[in-house]
């Protein structure tokens, strides 16, 4: 079974389309309005930074865009598909095919080697091993050699892990690269290398969304969306 997406054919459709989106977390002490009638539109090929202080609703927004969570109200379309109408399996498939995640803590699977980490989403999608050499090519592109590719994540440095994570995010050729503080756990130099890599990916035509609180990172994006108290500031 092939779980490939059909989103890419509709080129005029924005990759992210949020209209009047709210997210309410019901708590015993009262409902928390994490996203307050938010409207955002991100076109294909954009390089967007979503910025805001902690508690601004930034993470909640990221979870909505990443298909990990669904809004309480409003319309959220990812590559044209309304995620509020999707089943858990469809949402999972959306994350597999349409979104490439890059996390602050790298989030590689500790039991798998670097190579297998990159291959993992490929196997989930294609139900077979990669015989096209795509995994090796992506690893080479991010600067991970064959010897390093055999190592487990714990045996790699933070920078190397994040490179592997980028290769993993790209393996299923996603519509959106979603980066959550991608340099947050790296030193300045390594962080700069990772940012250069993401900028290069954008230059190749990919949609890159970076969520960060670091203004220097945000400045490297084409467009910045500022979030405060669950609303778009500018």
């Amino acid at each position: 079974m092939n779980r490939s997406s059909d989103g890419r054919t509709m080129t005029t459709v924005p990759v992210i389309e949020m209209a009047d989106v709210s997210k309410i977390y019901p708590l015993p002490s009262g409902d928390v309005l994490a996203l307050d009638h938010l409207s955002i539109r991100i076109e294909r090929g954009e390089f967007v930074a979503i910025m805001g202080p902690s508690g601004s609703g930034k993470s909640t927004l990221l979870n909505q865009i990443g298909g990990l969570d669904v809004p309480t109200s409003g319309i959220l379309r990812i590559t044209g598909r309304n995620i509020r109408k999707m089943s858990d399996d469809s949402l999972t498939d959306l994350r597999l095919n349409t979104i490439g995640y890059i996390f602050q803590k790298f989030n590689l699977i500790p039991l798998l080697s670097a190579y297998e980490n990159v291959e993992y989403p490929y196997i989930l999608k294609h139900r077979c091993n990669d015989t096209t050499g795509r995994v090796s090519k992506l690893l080479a592109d991010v600067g991970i050699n064959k010897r390093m590719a055999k190592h487990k994540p714990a045996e790699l440095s933070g920078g190397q892990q994040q490179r592997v994570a980028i290769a993993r995010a790209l393996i299923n050729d996603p519509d959106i690269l979603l980066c959550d503080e991608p340099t947050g756990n790296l030193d300045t130099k390594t962080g700069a290398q990772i940012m250069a890599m993401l900028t290069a990916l954008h230059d190749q035509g990919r949609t890159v969304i970076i969520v960060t609180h670091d203004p220097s990172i945000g400045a490297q994006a084409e467009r910045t969306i500022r979030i405060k108290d669950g609303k778009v500031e500018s």
Partner: protein
Amino acid sequence: MKKDIILQISVRSIRLNFLRSLLAAIGIVIGVVAISSMGMMGANMTMSVTEELSAMANVLVVKPDSGGGGGGMMGGGGSSSDDDYIDKDQFDDIERAAGKYGNVYPLYQESDTIKIGDEERRATIYGMRDEDMATILTVANGTLPQTSNAVVVGPTFAENNDLTIGSRITIGDEDDEEAIIQKVRVVGILEEKGMSMDLNSDNAIIMTEKAYTGLYGGEGEYDQVNVILYDIDDADTATEAIEDQLNRKEDEVQVQDSSRMMESITSTVSTLTTFVMAIAGISLLVAATSIFNVMMMSVTERIREIGILRSIGTRKSEVLRMFIYEAVILGLVGAIIGAIMSVILGWLVVLAMVGTTKYFFTFASLIYVPVSMAIGIVICIVSGVYPAWRAANLDPIEALRSD
């Protein structure tokens, strides 16, 4: 090449926590060994007992119907009340009805006081026709009695009373003035026969018909008639034939079929086996708890990993599968080691408890190995279901946040 990455992760998780997983699997090993060796012991015991009993189960014992329908199964009632006997005509009828199915012979039986040296005690005394003695009895030492003052004794009886060829026994109560006293001499000691329905010759005095009727009278008034069947499968047919012949108008005799006793003993053994296996099954319950515990630990430790897997596109069902695999692997490893060990230990248990392993490598015995393996694996899967379900249904956002 097709590769199940989900299975790979399960295998690696087990390898990573090798010791913990091994300890959990040992629980299953013990459970499987306990159940299968107990089962095998029961099966071997049943087969062994069945064979031993079938040697003596080929006997029909015909007794006069005492009206109450009672009468001990073991044929050792001992009292021959004046009215309760099988007469010569009835014996002829029995022989006519059952003669073609087996060897029919009549038996006199009495329990009487005897005196050996100065010691008085009671003993079972049988009277047999000369021709029956020749076919039924086997003498280990000496000869069969020919005269009225000669007897043969069973080996147990001889041993208990220090009797040898030539020993003297006084039959009859010397204090009872009405009793007839007869002094007899032991001319033969019988071979050991083992437990038997028809004639417990091992612990008895056996004399000729003439000697017996001389002592107790009642010639032609037999206490029981035995049919030693040529083929045990004829038991029902022969029983019916005898009952048709004699019990047409009223119940003159009752026929005791010793294969019934065998059935009841076999069923007792299998009930016991089931009971012991159920106790052994408790060890599997303990194993289930430890598997459950290990699985819960595995899930708790890997919450973050589950979050990662879910966020990058692993379906709930795939996470579920990952943890079920883990339980299945633990179960399989435990069951396979358990199976190997239960063949070894089972063999030893059977040797120790049953005394023979000649039935060990039979289907009825070895079937307990795959059965207990299956039980072990199923228990593992059942204990893994809840932890796996929990893992699959974790909120990926919450899971990612955990450390």
